[in-house]
């Protein structure tokens, strides 16, 4: 090669190589970009599982509390609405349902969050719908009349047999297997511990459940059961009888001590039950409430046993969705009431729109305040505020883990015999439910909803601690918790979405149910009526719905309307 030729050659070649170079590199990068690197980087633990927080809109509430946002809307146009419902949880939605059901549809419902549902809120992703809170409804008791009516209306009860027992849509009855417990290194069916129990422990279990049956059968002087759902449909003696009043004033732990229930498996189970329904441990739950959990369920069905439950992939979000659909066009989400005032016959409500801060004023004839009372007390006029020092709202963490395969799936893809509800004897959480359990699909992926009542310390302290916990810390805590049952959990999870419910649910602390403060919550303030499960003292669908319907009944009476059906 001669010198001169080489240099020009080189220059030319260098140029063409640069271009080719670039094309090759670009092609390589494109190919690399198309490859699902994130997946195997995750499998190899090079990258962390994505996690995202979806907590309720606490900031707005706190700003209102701190006075950063003025409660009073500036003067302007006033919107007239005959009936206004504040709060789109089950109580508010049920109040609206009852109004519609009785031919009154001239109402408006405001919800602070961007969607209604409250504790029955749900979400959905590409894999499945999933609950954000409450996730099942037991076969309703006979006295849960409004629940029966509602289930009939939405087709969940399809008919009745000769004995009047309801037939439920079988796709909604929780499919087998319902629940399992991780204990002694394996899963057993059912959550009441069975595996590895001594004879004494078994005997104590039997004694406990026999006693619960007796409580369940107990009736007051009026012939009504002591323990009913809703609580208020029970005998008037429920807190009057001396021993029962005493039960509510002592904690479940104290009662167990007194009655000599000491075995660890039994107390574990009862603690689980209290935390499951009330978000509080044995020591901070009323014994009356703790017994109610085991003594009040008496539902019957034509096509399921009385212990059966109704469940949906999105949990009680299914019920909230039906209620939402019934109120379509009359619900405004993302708008909060900031002040309630009374002017003559009218009730004025100032509101704030969460996304753009727009203010407005609504004038209503009647108002249903279906928010927790600690929220209502901030926006009500001084005279209408009810003391609630004894009310405890338990904080919860709910995490939805999207999984590629159910934990325990073998290398060859053989899925485990899983249950809908999966609990560990050794964990501080309540385990998880499988969202896809109630579908007929046999796709591999699912969403596991992990429940964690933050009850290891008093509610306020736990709430503040939860607010300070970072997403990465939650991720580690959630995965470490599940690893106890499923060592392979980290390789199954593709993302985690979680929600910290700061004031997750009313907790029946000792004395709350029978106390004067709670009874005071039932009273209306003029044409302002209240509807929330904190009036009942237990955060159950049946209670929230009951409170919503009672408030709607008072509204109908305000308006001089008669109801077409139902009487209380």
């Amino acid at each position, binding site marked *: 090669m001669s010198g001169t030729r*080489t240099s020009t*050659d*080189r220059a030319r*070649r*260098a140029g063409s*190589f640069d271009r*080719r*170079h670039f094309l*090759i*590199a670009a092609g*390589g990068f494109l190919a690399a970009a198309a490859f699902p690197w994130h997946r*195997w980087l995750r*499998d190899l633990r090079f990258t962390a599982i994505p996690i995202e927080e979806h907590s309720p809109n606490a900031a707005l509430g706190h700003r209102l509390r701190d006075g950063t946002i003025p409660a009073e809307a500036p003067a302007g146009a006033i919107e007239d609405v005959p009936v206004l419902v504040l709060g789109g949880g089950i109580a508010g939605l049920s109040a609206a349902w009852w109004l519609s059901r009785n031919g009154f549809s001239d109402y408006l419902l405001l919800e602070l969050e961007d969607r209604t549902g409250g504790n029955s809120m749900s979400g959905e992703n590409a894999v499945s719908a999933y609950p954000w809170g409450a996730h099942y409804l037991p076969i309703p008791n006979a006295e849960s009349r409004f629940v029966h009516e509602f289930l009939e209306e939405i087709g969940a009860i399809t008919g009745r047999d000769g004995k009047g027992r309801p037939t439920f849509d*079988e*796709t909604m*009855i*929780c*499919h*087998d*297997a319902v629940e399992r417990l991780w204990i002694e290194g394996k899963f057993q069916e059912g959550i009441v511990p069975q595996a590895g129990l001594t004879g004494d422990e078994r005997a104590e279990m039997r004694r406990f459940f026999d006693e619960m049956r007796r409580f369940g059968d107990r009736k007051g002087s009026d012939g009504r059961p002591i323990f009913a759902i809703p609580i208020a449909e029970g005998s008037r003696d429920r807190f009057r009888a001396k021993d029962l009043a005493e039960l509510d004033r002592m904690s479940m732990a104290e009662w167990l001590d007194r009655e000599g229930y000491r075995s660890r498996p039994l107390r574990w189970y009862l603690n689980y039950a209290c935390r499951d329904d009330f978000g509080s441990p044995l020591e901070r739950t009323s014994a009356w409430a703790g017994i109610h959990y085991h003594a009040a369920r008496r539902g019957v069905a034509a096509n*399921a046993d009385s212990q*059966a439950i109704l469940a949906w992939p999105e949990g009680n979000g299914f019920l909230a969705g039906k209620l939402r659909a019934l109120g379509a066009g009359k619900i405004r989400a993302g708008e909060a009431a900031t002040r309630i005032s009374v002017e003559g016959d009218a009730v004025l409500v100032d509101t704030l729109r969460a996304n753009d801060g727009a203010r407005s004023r609504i004038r209503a004839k009647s108002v249903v305040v279906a928010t927790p009372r600690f929220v209502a007390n901030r926006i009500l006029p001084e005279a209408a505020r009810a003391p609630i020092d004894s009310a405890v709202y338990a904080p919860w963490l709910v995490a939805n883990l999207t999984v590629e395969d159910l934990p325990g799936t*073998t*290398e*060859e*893809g*053989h*899925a*485990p*015999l*899983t249950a809908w509800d999966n609990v560990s004897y050794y964990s501080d959480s309540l385990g998880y439910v499988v969202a*896809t*359990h109630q579908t*007929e*699909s*046999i*796709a*591999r*992926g699912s969403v596991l909803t992990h429940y964690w009542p933050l009850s290891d310390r008093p509610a306020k302290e736990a709430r503040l601690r939860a607010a300070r916990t970072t997403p990465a810390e939650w991720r580690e805590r959630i995965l470490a918790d599940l690893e106890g049952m499923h060592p392979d959990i980290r390789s199954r999870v593709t993302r985690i979405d979680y929600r910290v419910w700061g004031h997750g649910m009313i907790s029946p602390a000792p004395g709350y149910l029978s106390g004067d403060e709670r009874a005071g919550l039932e009273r209306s303030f003029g044409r302002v009526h209240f509807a929330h499960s904190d009036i009942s003292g237990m955060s159950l669908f049946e209670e929230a719905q009951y409170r919503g319907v009672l408030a709607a009944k008072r509204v109908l009476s305000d308006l001089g309307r008669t109801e077409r059906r139902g009487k209380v």
Partner: protein
Amino acid sequence: MANARAAAHGDAPERTLLSPAFVLLLSVFVIATCGLVYELIAGALASYLLGDSVTQFSTIIGCYLFSMGIGSYASKFFTRDLSRVFIRVEILVGLVGGFSAAILFAAFEHVGSFRVLLYALVMLTGTLVGLEIPLLMRILRKEYAFRDLVSKVFTVDYIGALLASLIFPLVLVPHLGLVRSAFLFGILNVVVALWTLHLFRRQLHSISALQFGGILALLALVVGFAFGEQIMGLADASSFPDRVVYSKATHYQRIVLTQAPHDLRLFLNGNLQFSSRDEYRYHEALVHVGLAGIENPKRVLILGGGDGLAAREVFRYPSIESIRLVDLDPEMTRLFSNNDVLRGLNRDSLRNPKLAITNADAFVWLRANRDTFDFVIVDFPDPSNFSIGKLYSDAFYRELKRAVAPGGAVVIQSTSPYVAKNAFQIVDNTLASAGFRTHPYHTNVPSFGEWGYVLGDFGGWKIPTKYPEGLQYLSTAVTPLLLAFPADMRATDPAVLHSVNRLNNQILVRTFENEWDAYLH
């Protein structure tokens, strides 16, 4: 390395062990080894995937050697810059050979004509390897006397071949597997190329592009070596008795095909679905006992059966106007529509214009369906988990009933009445509870064992008096044996005699699991 001519010229410093000439000879060795390894891999892979190893090895070796001839011939057209061409070819050989096994495994499902791709890759590798030796001899021409050169190059070449032929069966296949072996030798190829490049850096101009390309190729191969099997899902091959030739985790299940001599097997989630040796027994019994017993069947529904084997049997009836096949997994129907070997097995039934495929959840699809069919074949995996158990529930069979035309019938594959006697009885009860008149029957499928089916009708089905031509197993003489149940295939648990599998009791899955567990352990 001694060299008379070089010594005479006195430029001894160039003649160290790491001299370009030595490295070039080393390249010959590596190329020879790699070349033969690629060829052996292609041969082994072809016999895994296509069967018939004598034909595969013979044609692949022939094709490979012939391609080397093409390469050798083509080498004369390269006249300038030989070292650069050589290095480039070597990187290319590394890339093509290194990725060959991965490409062939990955293409098994997608390419209609797998053989075309196979031979194209073999020829490409052969041609590139064929180019190398002549090029090298021309590069080394100035370094050695011709006599020496020929002797050295070919000695090294044949030693390399010997090494390859020994380590391939003894080390590579048992310890690394085909995919990783190919990547390993690809890496060796490229490393030698880069080393050569390094030594020739003064003689060659503008080598940065070549360096860049080489390093990129090396990286790709290393990634392939490290993660290739995981990415392709072949890593768990050890849990299957035979060679895994295809493995894919789809959205719904893990599909695995394994190949032993004369036996192709399909596994879904680790459960055997068929063995090509005796699947005809299973499918003839599944389809014909019912279908030959109804008048003039025209419209058939197949739920599950994405392998197309049941459809193949249905097409034996000239009266058939249409088949609707509903299988959950699109990957499954795609695999059995596209792959040569599998299309041979199902006689291209999935591509028959009379057959329409719907990829959907059977339960969800059935609930929305308003069509009726003369015969419905329900061929789901065994009820080994609660999701699949729902497809054996009374709720499902009630939906199924709506899809049966007057005079029609359904057949349910119902696991083994020998192993899972009580589970089998529950399927029968459940179908009967939905209003069907049931006729349980069974047959022996050697790879499965004694297998059972439950036929359901509303009075329109009669014991067949005539079967289609060409069946290997079923005949009117055999049929009564299928319908007779000996004592050891009857339910043993009095509690299940009237048990019905419902969504909220899933008694079938529990019984099935207990019985199979007891049988296998």
